[in-house]
C-alpha cells in the first residue's frame, strides 16, 4: 500500500461521512422523503472491502447502503438525486435510498429485504465463474441477516460450487433496536465454517485491517478457491434510521460516546497516517475540505435537479 492508496481510503471514508451528514440534515429538515439508514461509524467496512475490489467486481448491498454505493465508486451528485427522487438519480428516482443501484460499477443494488440479496450475490458470482472471468461478488449484510434462512441455503451452494462470493457481515451489534446477542445463538464464525467456508473476524473500525482481510478473501476467490466470510465488528454511531433519536431503551449514551471517542474509523486511520509520517494532519484536512466541497456541490446539483416526468411512472415495469 502506498501513500496515495491510504489517502484514497481516507477520502472515501470522509466522503461517506459527509454524505451521510447531509442526508441527516436533509431528512430532519423535511427535504428528503422516505427513510434513511445512515452508515456513519461503519465507513471502514465498505471502504476497506471495496478498495480490494476492481470496478468490474460485483457488490450487493442493504437498506444501509449509501456507504457501499459510494465506496464502489458512485458519485455523490447522482446519489443525492436518487435519494430525493429526482430524474438524474442512479435509478431515475424509482429506487430511492434503500434500492440504489449502479450497475456500471458492479453495484447490483441495495436491498430492503434483510438478507434479500444473498442469492443475487451468489448468482452474480455463479455467472462470473461460468463466463470464466475472475470477477468476484461481495455480499454486504448486517448481522441481522444471520437470522434469515436464505443465507444458509446460499452459503451451502457457494461452498458446494466454489463460487467467488465473499459474505461480508457487518456486525454493528444491533438488529434494529435489539442487541444481536439476544437474537443470535452460538459462535457466529462457526456458521460459515460449518459449510467449509473460510471465515475470519476483523476489526471493522480499522480500514487497514478490513482491507487486508478482504484482500485475502478476494485473492482466494479470484484464484478459484471459492467463497469466504468476513465478520467485521463495527458500530453505527447514530440511530437505526434518522428518526431513531431516543435510543436509551436499547443502548446507553455512554456506550455511544465511547465508540465515537475511541473507535472512529476516520480518526483511527488519520492517527496512524500521522504517526507513521505517511501524511500530515494538514494534508488530511485538505483531503477533507476537497471532499466536503465536492459533496456539497453534489447536493446542490440534486436539489436543483428535476423530478421525473409523470410519464415515467409506468415505464420499466417490464424490460
Amino acid at each position, binding site marked *: 500500500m502506498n501513500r496515495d492508496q491510504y489517502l484514497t481510503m481516507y477520502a472515501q471514508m470522509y466522503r461517506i461521512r459527509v454524505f451521510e451528514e447531509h442526508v441527516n440534515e436533509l431528512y430532519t429538515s423535511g427535504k428528503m422523503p422516505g427513510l434513511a439508514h445512515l452508515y456513519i461509524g461503519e465507513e471502514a467496512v465498505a471502504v476497506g472491502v471495496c478498495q480490494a475490489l476492481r470496478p468490474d467486481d460485483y457488490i450487493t448491498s442493504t437498506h444501509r447502503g449509501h456507504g457501499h454505493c459510494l465506496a464502489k465508486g458512485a458519485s455523490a451528485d447522482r446519489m443525492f438525486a436518487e435519494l430525493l427522487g429526482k430524474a438524474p438519480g442512479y*435509478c431515475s428516482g*424509482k429506487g430511492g435510498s434503500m434500492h440504489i443501484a449502479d450497475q456500471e460499477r458492479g453495484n447490483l443494488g441495495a436491498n430492503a429485504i434483510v438478507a434479500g440479496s444473498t442469492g443475487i450475490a451468489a448468482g452474480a458470482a455463479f455467472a462470473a465463474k461460468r463466463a470464466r472471468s475472475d470477477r468476484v461478488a461481495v455480499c454486504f449484510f448486517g448481522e441481522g441477516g444471520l437470522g434469515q434462512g436464505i443465507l444458509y441455503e446460499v452459503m451451502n*451452494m457457494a461452498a458446494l460450487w466454489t463460487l467467488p462470493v465473499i459474505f461480508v457481515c457487518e456486525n454493528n451489534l444491533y438488529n434494529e433496536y435489539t442487541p444481536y446477542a439476544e437474537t443470535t445463538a452460538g459462535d457466529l464464525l462457526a456458521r460459515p465454517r460449518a459449510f467449509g467456508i473460510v471465515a475470519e473476524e476483523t476489526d471493522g473500525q480499522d480500514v487497514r485491517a478490513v482491507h487486508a482481510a478482504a484482500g485475502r478473501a478476494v485473492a482466494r476467490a479470484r484464484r478459484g478457491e471459492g467463497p469466504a466470510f468476513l465478520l467485521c465488528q463495527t458500530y453505527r454511531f447514530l440511530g437505526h434510521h434518522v428518526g431513531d433519536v431516543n435510543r436509551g431503551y436499547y443502548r446507553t449514551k455512554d456506550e455511544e460516546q465511547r465508540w465515537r471517542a475511541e473507535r472512529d474509523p476516520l480518526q483511527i486511520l488519520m492517527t496512524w497516517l500521522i504517526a507513521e509520517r505517511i501524511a500530515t494532519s494538514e494534508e488530511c484536512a485538505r483531503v477533507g475540505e476537497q471532499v466536503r466541497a465536492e459533496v456539497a456541490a453534489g447536493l446542490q446539483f440534486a436539489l436543483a435537479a428535476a423530478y421525473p416526468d409523470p410519464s415515467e411512472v409506468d415505464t420499466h415495469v417490464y*424490460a
Partner: protein
Amino acid sequence: MTSDPASTVVATREITFGQAVREALAEEMRRDPTVFIIGEDVAEAGTPFKVLSGLVEEFGPARVIDSPISEAGITGLAVGAAMAGMRPVVDIMFGDFITLAMDQIANQAAKVHYMSGGKLKVPMVVRTTLGATRRSAAQHSQSLQAWVSHVPGLKVALPSTPFDAKGLWKTAIRDDNPVVIFEDKLMYPLKGPVPEGEYAIPFVTIVATSSMVQVALRAAEMLSPLGISAEVVDPRTTVPLDARALVDSARKTSRVMVMDEGYERYGVTAELAAVIAEGAFHYLDAPVKRLGAMHVPVPFSPVLEDLTVPTPERVVEVAKTLCGKR
C-alpha cells in the same frame, strides 16, 4: 389458398406436453449457452415427472444442475445470474413450493428492472406446476397462478396444449423479464400437434370493423395452429373512437393490422393506423399494416369482385408477414 394453412408452413407431428417442454428447453439450450436449469432432482432424475429427462445427458451437470432443497436460495441465485447476463430456468418442483421462494420472485425478480430505473434486467423463467386431482392433498395440489399474476413486473404463462407449451417456453426463455410458467401436472401425457423445428409464439392485434370482425375472427382461428396468437379488437364506433383500446392492444402485442371494408386510401384504416402509430409507436416491432378494399370500382364478375375485399386468407398472409413468418 389451402383451407389448412398449418400444412403449408412446416411439418407437424404429435408429441406429448412433457416432450414439448423438454424440446423447447433443449432447443433453447443449444441455441444460447447462457441458458441453464437449476432445481431439485432435475438432472439424472429429470424431475419427479420425468419431463426433463435426457437433458443432463446432452448438456451436462454444469447446465442442468441438481440443487439443494433450497427454493429461496436457488431462485435468488437465478436472479443474480440473470442480472449478470445469464438466462436461468429455475425448476420449483410443485407450485405449492413457490411460497418458499416468494420473496425472491415478488420482491427481487419482479422489482429489479423498475427499481433500477430500467438499468438492470432479470431474464429468467420459473417453472412450476399447478392442479389438483392427483390425490396429493393440500400441500401438493394448489393452483397459485393468481399470486404471481398480481405482481407487476412478472409475466405468467399457462400453456394448455403441447403446441402452446413449446411455443410459450421458447418465448419465455427469450423474454428479458422474469416469467413464471405453470404446467398442470395432469397434462404431461397429453398429446397434440407441434411443428417440427423452430417457432416461438408471437402475438398480433387485428383491429376490424363491421363484417370484417367476422373475417378477423376466422383468420385468428387459422393463425392459431401456425403459432400466431391474434387478438381481435372491434372499436364498435369510429366516432367517437376508443383510441385507448386500440393503443393498449398494440402496446401489448407490438404488431398490428387494421381492417375495414372501405377503401384503404384516405380511409378508416388510415385513420386507425395513424391513431395506433401515435399512441404506440415505440412499442411496435413492425409498421402497422392495413387491409381494406382495393382502390377500384367494385366489379360485377364474382371472380373479380372477391379479389377486392379482405378475406381470412389474406389476413393470415399479412399476419404471417407481420410476425416474420413467410
